[in-house]
Each structure stands twice: as structure tokens, then as C-alpha cells.
């Protein structure tokens, strides 16, 4: 259900990250959107599935390809009260990754549980 705060309605937002970083601009653009919604005091959730799990892989070093490392921004999300990060278990497994490979604390959940959580949102934005 929607709640009110002093500045208006608070909606449950979910940003669904499905793209690998660096190859396309999607991952970076979603981060920009997330930071904007945080500024409006919304209830922000971030989900990482499919190739999106690579966005929060530890150790990005894009210097050699001449790009900016934007992965530290994920660690800064906590400072914007964005702490609801969910990672799909099946997506990690297909890619040979574990929770230890990720640079931020997340909740790993099954595809079925993530689907349920997604269905409870007011706004879902996938990229």
C-alpha cells in the first residue's frame, strides 16, 4: 500500500538490473535513476538478475578499456538509504558466481521469491 510522507506519496519502486556493465550504458543509467528516486524519498528496491548480477561483481578495473569504474557507487547507495538489494540465486549459479563475489551486502533469493516481491511493487523499471 502507498504511504504518505511530509512531501507526498511514497511508492514501492523496483529497479530491475539485467545488463552487464561497460558493454552497454544501461547499468550506469539505472544507477542515475535510482539516485534520483532516492532524492524523492521513495521506497526503493534494486533487483539484480540475468547479466545484471555482473554489475556488482567485485574488482571492476576498467582503466584498460578507458572507462570509468562506477561500481563504487553501489557501495554508496547505503548512504542514500537504499539498502534493499536483491540478487537472483539462479542467475548467480548460471554464471559460476557466489554471494562472496559481490561487492555489496545483498539478499540472495530464488527466482520464484523474486517474482513474488516484484508483484508487490507499485512501479517496476527494468533495464
Amino acid at each position, binding site marked *: 500500500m502507498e504511504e504518505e510522507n511530509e512531501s507526498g506519496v511514497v511508492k514501492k519502486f523496483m529497479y530491475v538490473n539485467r*545488463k552487464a556493465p561497460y558493454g552497454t550504458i544501461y547499468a550506469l543509467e539505472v544507477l542515475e535513476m535510482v539516485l534520483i528516486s532516492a532524492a524523492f524519498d521513495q521506497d526503493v528496491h534494486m533487483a539484480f538478475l540475468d547479466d545484471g548480477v*555482473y554489475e556488482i*561483481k567485485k*574488482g571492476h*578495473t*576498467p582503466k*584498460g578499456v578507458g*572507462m570509468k569504474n562506477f561500481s563504487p557507487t553501489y557501495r554508496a547507495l547505503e548512504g542514500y538509504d537504499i539498502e534493499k538489494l536483491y540478487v537472483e540465486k539462479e542467475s548467480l549459479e*548460471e554464471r559460476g558466481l557466489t554471494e562472496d563475489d559481490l561487492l555489496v551486502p545483498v539478499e540472495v533469493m530464488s527466482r520464484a521469491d523474486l517474482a513474488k516481491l516484484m508483484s508487490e511493487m507499485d512501479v517496476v523499471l527494468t533495464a
Partner: protein
Amino acid sequence: MSTLHTVNKSPFERSNLDSCLGHVVAGDSIILIEDAVYAALSGTSVTARMADAAKQFRICVLGPDLQARGMDTGAVIDGITVVDYGGFVDLAAESRVVNAWL
């Protein structure tokens, strides 16, 4: 008289790599660049297919693209060679044709 095939899409998202593997002939080389570097790693759902392909064709992966994505070059599948930009140029120069599977 060989072709260098370049693949730049993730094998988990697009079929570019599958198509490429279906059209490679003896003597050709494949280089995995950008988001295709994820195909070069062990422990994934595409590892077996890539390990098999590496027995038939020369397969390389671009090191700087692995490093950008935080991927350990030590986790690259046996039989796949990590190359730098200079190595990429050498592969292109040795080949008669470059086919980019965009």
C-alpha cells in the same frame, strides 16, 4: 586464408556466440571481446560448450575487457588464450577476413 571472428555480446543474453560457433571452419580464430568475455570463464552454464570449441578452434579473450569486469584471468577456461590489444591486432593481421558478429 582464415577468418578472425569477433564476438562482443554476452552468451547469456544473445545468440551471437552460438551463431558464430555454428559458422566457424577449420583454421579460423575467435576472439571474445566486451560482454562476450563472460563466455571464456570456467564454472558457468556455457563452459562445457566453450571448452569443447576450444579443442577445435583457436579461441582468444581480450584481457583488458576481463579486467574491466572484475574477472580473474586465472579463471579462463583451459585452451582459451588471454591476449592484450597488441595480440588482437596480430590476430586481425594474420587473418584474411575479420567477421564481427554484432
